[in-house]
């Protein structure tokens, strides 16, 4: 069992399992392993799971479990985590048109870091990111770790709506907005790829554990890909 695991009730029908109190590669692997194990050997009365950076929220049926009982069962799962073999991560590409109307905050981000917009694009697209988890809205992947030199606080007041496909950064994270949702991340580009596709086998374009690269494309390529 991973050493630092702690449990905390989040509500009368949910329990948080913390693997760590900071974002670490080890905690991320434990999150994935627990999800994997609970998917292959579901616990009756566990109604939902919400993974995050270093925790999993377990929502349960109140008629079946109390926090302590469920924690005891989960401990028996946690003891077996090291035996879980995770599938090889997929390598995914996200073609992205940076700047201009596609990335309205690119210039500001560059200014904040004393870089040129081209340097920001170069740096953002030079890193292989990990999908830590999907959260917020359907198909929104929390990608890390953004290079320290690009770490940027959120907008002081969030946009009411972000165009679907917008590539944003916030603190040391980056991600793609699948839907026209409100959002406070700074938008540096946009991808023509649909991030969430109901009816398809892999509904979410990205999955937890994927390795992700952003590939710069032109506006013309964006339009061509969007129409294809």
């Amino acid at each position, binding site marked *: 069992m991973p050493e630092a695991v702690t449990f905390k009730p989040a509500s*009368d029908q949910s329990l948080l399992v913390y693997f760590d109190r900071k974002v670490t590669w080890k905690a991320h692997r434990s999150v994935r392993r627990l999800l994997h194990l609970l998917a292959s050997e579901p616990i009756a009365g566990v109604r939902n799971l*919400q993974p995050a*950076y270093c925790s999993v*929220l377990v*929502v349960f049926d109140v008629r079946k479990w109390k926090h302590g009982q469920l924690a005891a069962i989960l401990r028996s799962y946690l003891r077996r985590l090291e035996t879980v073999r995770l599938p090889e991560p997929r390598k995914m590409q996200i073609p992205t048109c940076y700047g201009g109307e596609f990335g309205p905050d690119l210039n500001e981000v560059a200014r904040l870091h004393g870089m040129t917009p081209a340097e920001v694009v170069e740096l953002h697209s030079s890193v292989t990111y990990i999908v830590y*988890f999907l*959260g*917020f809205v359907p198909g929104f992947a929390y990608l890390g770790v953004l290079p320290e030199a690009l770490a940027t606080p959120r907008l002081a007041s969030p946009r009411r709506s972000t165009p679907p496909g917008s590539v944003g950064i916030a603190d040391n994270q980056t991600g793609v907005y699948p839907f026209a949702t409100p959002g406070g991340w700074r938008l540096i580009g946009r991808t023509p790829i649909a991030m969430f596709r109901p009816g398809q086998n892999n509904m979410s374009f990205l999955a937890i554990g994927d390795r992700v690269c952003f590939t710069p494309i032109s506006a013309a390529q964006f339009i061509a890909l969007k129409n294809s």
Partner: protein
Amino acid sequence: MLYTDIRRAIHRAKELMSSIQIQTAGLLTTVQDLGREGFGPLGVSVSGAADPISLRLGNRLVGNRETTAGLEMTLFGGTFHFPDGAIVALAGSDFGASLDEVNVDVGTSVSVRPGQTLRLGPTRSGARCYLCVQGGIAVPPFLQSASTHILSGLGGFEGRALKAGDVLEIGSSTEPFRKRTIAPHITGHLLAREVFGVTPGPQLDWFSESSRHSFYSATYRVGEQCDRMGLRLEGAPISQRKRRTMITEGVSLGAVQVPPGGLPIILFVEQQTTGGYPKIANVISADFHRLGQLRPRDEIRFEQVTWKVAHSLFMEQEKLLASEDSILE
């Protein structure tokens, strides 16, 4: 040819299928059932009826399973025409309904004759009223549920709120009309109350003793910005003991999160699945349905209850709802 026979049969079945014509949609009317659970790992929240108890009771009035899809109306109801008739019931708040000028009570099954029109107006009580139809509202399920998730445009009827001119199909059903009403003791149990029970949030210890005290003693007003995603509250801001960096984590339904401004937000049915604000408290499961009846400018207070009390309140409520005498025939 067999194929043409099948086509003819499908055609006939479609003709037999009853429908509801939306003449006016009201302020915000969506198809809802009890939601889709188990898709958190995809970032998909449960959604479903904002006042699930009213939807469940409404369904029982018309002889449906509790999980059947109905229409959720918000603050101002719509006008619904039934060319083929239907067996319907309204549950939840009183939106001053009438069927061809005759008043219709909330919490009673009604037989609608072909060609009749059901009209609802502004609420006279809480925020939501449910229209349940025998056979249910037939929409293609998305991730096993008929619920509309407005923000992402998924589920329900074309992933959106209804508008005038929409035609909804009613699921097939053959059960004869039965007059059923919600028992008075159940209606009494569901009456609006100012106080909401809460259990400690996972970051309760991030808040000082005095912040907690003011949270439990203050009266909050529900802000104008309250929707299916969350209810923003106005009142005394809650300050954190010290600014700490919060790592984004899964958030539960009814979580009371406190952004840097200090004004709490209660996460609701169409909630984001993860969040990065500390949570001071969580509304108890037994009170979820009452969140769905809160209107902008309503005043509420929070009362801390123990885990044990939260559990028993939920169990007692479920027992009350499950009892035979909760619906009178």
